[in-house]
């Protein structure tokens, strides 16, 4: 049921029953290494190209999800998946081997929450029972599509972010089928917000206003305050983007710095990993939520989170044509039954 301007309250509160994550070598050197289910030792993952490696990573991530949830492909009604590559090839080729209906998504780095929103709405409607929401990104395949060839020697701006090599997947279920007490209670799809940022090396700042808009609309619609949640978790604003989000809230007289965490900041060690402003990419929030945060929810260390995946909706073509970078952010309220 829609409440307020943008938020939908889910009366049947679908359950996030299981999650699965897989990351690359650099992510395994980061502080969250112990939480990931699987990792690839080499960025090629025994494949000939980075694109094939990314597909294989996503495929194995979803397969692992089914194993963890103790179900088979036949039990899954739909898979939602998306990535950063043109025509979403990572997802298409990953899910080619599955005997399950597939709905492809593109929301740049906001894809994972877009998938969670659509999955939970589909289940809320009673149409289906079990849906997979997944997303992936790969540093090397993204780099060659959006930036420079890998072996080109250049300096990165301090506000630039490194695309995370990772996939994450979540199984969303109707409570009647499987329930572990972790529920999606509200979803807030975001509006496109563009404050005219054009710097391709500063996606964090381009996306922060969208995150602000979605979070503030979510709070207004639900009548909640920041204090209701244990954490407000954004996808990949990075260090600089997080700073900008804090500033935008400060302008409204709200201090979110104690509640706010960003997956792009969490996944790498800022001091020692040479990642400038942090991680980015669809796989960033997908893998960090599917490992660390889901773990925290299951361990009862955290009870209520607002998960906001942020995306920068540009392409190298729009950027070459002088367009600014439109931002988007989708929020999902995840609460554990106490």
């Amino acid at each position, binding site marked *: 049921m829609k409440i307020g301007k943008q938020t939908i309250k889910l009366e049947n509160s679908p359950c996030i029953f299981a999650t699965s994550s897989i990351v690359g070598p650099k992510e395994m050197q980061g502080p969250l290494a112990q939480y990931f289910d699987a990792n690839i030792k080499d960025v090629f993952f025994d494949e000939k190209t980075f694109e094939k490696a990314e597909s294989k990573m996503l495929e194995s991530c979803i397969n692992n999800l089914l194993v963890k949830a103790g179900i088979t492909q036949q039990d899954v009604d739909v898979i939602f998946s998306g990535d950063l590559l043109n025509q979403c090839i990572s997802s298409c080729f990953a899910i080619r081997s599955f005997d399950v209906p597939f709905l492809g998504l593109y929301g740049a780095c906001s894809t994972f929450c877009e998938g969670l929103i659509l999955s939970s709405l589909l289940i809320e409607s009673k149409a289906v029972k079990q849906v997979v929401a997944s997303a992936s990104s790969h540093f090397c395949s993204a780099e060659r599509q959006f930036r420079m060839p890998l072996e080109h020697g*250049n*300096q990165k701006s301090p506000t630039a972010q490194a695309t995370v090599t990772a996939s994450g997947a979540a199984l969303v279920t109707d409570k009647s089928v499987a329930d572990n007490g972790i529920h999606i209670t509200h979803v807030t799809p975001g509006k496109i917000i563009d404050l005219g940022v054009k710097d391709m*090396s500063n996606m964090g700042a381009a996306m922060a206003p969208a995150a602000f808009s979605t979070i503030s609309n979510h709070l207004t619609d639900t009548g909640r305050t920041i204090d209701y949640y244990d954490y407000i978790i954004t996808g990949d604003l990075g260090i600089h983007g997080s700073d900008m989000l804090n500033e935008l809230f400060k302008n409204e007289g709200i201090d979110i710095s104690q509640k706010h965490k960003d997956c792009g900041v969490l996944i790498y060690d800022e001091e020692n990993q040479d990642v400038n402003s942090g991680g980015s990419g669809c796989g960033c929030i997908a893998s960090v939520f599917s490992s660390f945060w889901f773990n925290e929810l299951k361990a009862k260390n955290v009870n209520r989170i607002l998960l906001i995946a942020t995306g920068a909706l540009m392409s190298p073509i729009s950027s070459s044509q002088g367009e600014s970078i439109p931002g988007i952010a989708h929020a999902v309220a995840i609460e554990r039954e106490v």
Partner: protein
Amino acid sequence: MDMLLNYGSAFLTGGIICVIGQILIDKTKLTPARILTLFVTLGVILTFLGIYEPIAEFGKCGATVPISGFGYSLFKGTVKAIEEKGFIGIFTGGVTATAGGIAAAVVFGFLASLFAKPTIK
């Protein structure tokens, strides 16, 4: 002694040209492809204006090794060809003078691609 001066002026000239590029990158957010393009075009224009020749005489390889030196060779070759062959030299001079470098870059690039594999930093 002459030898040392020779290296010193190359180091200084090359270093300064690179520093100008670095300031442009940091201050204007120009991408490397744009910097390279800007420098080669500036090399051509400065040679045309007679400004690059004295720099090259002083800096030697310090002025010819940076990509602006590629522009210098292009235009110098054009002038030489115009003097030797007249009008047609406008079209043949530049590429003739730089043919070695371009051919080397293409061939080495092709050979490298046969053996090398990209990796992450």
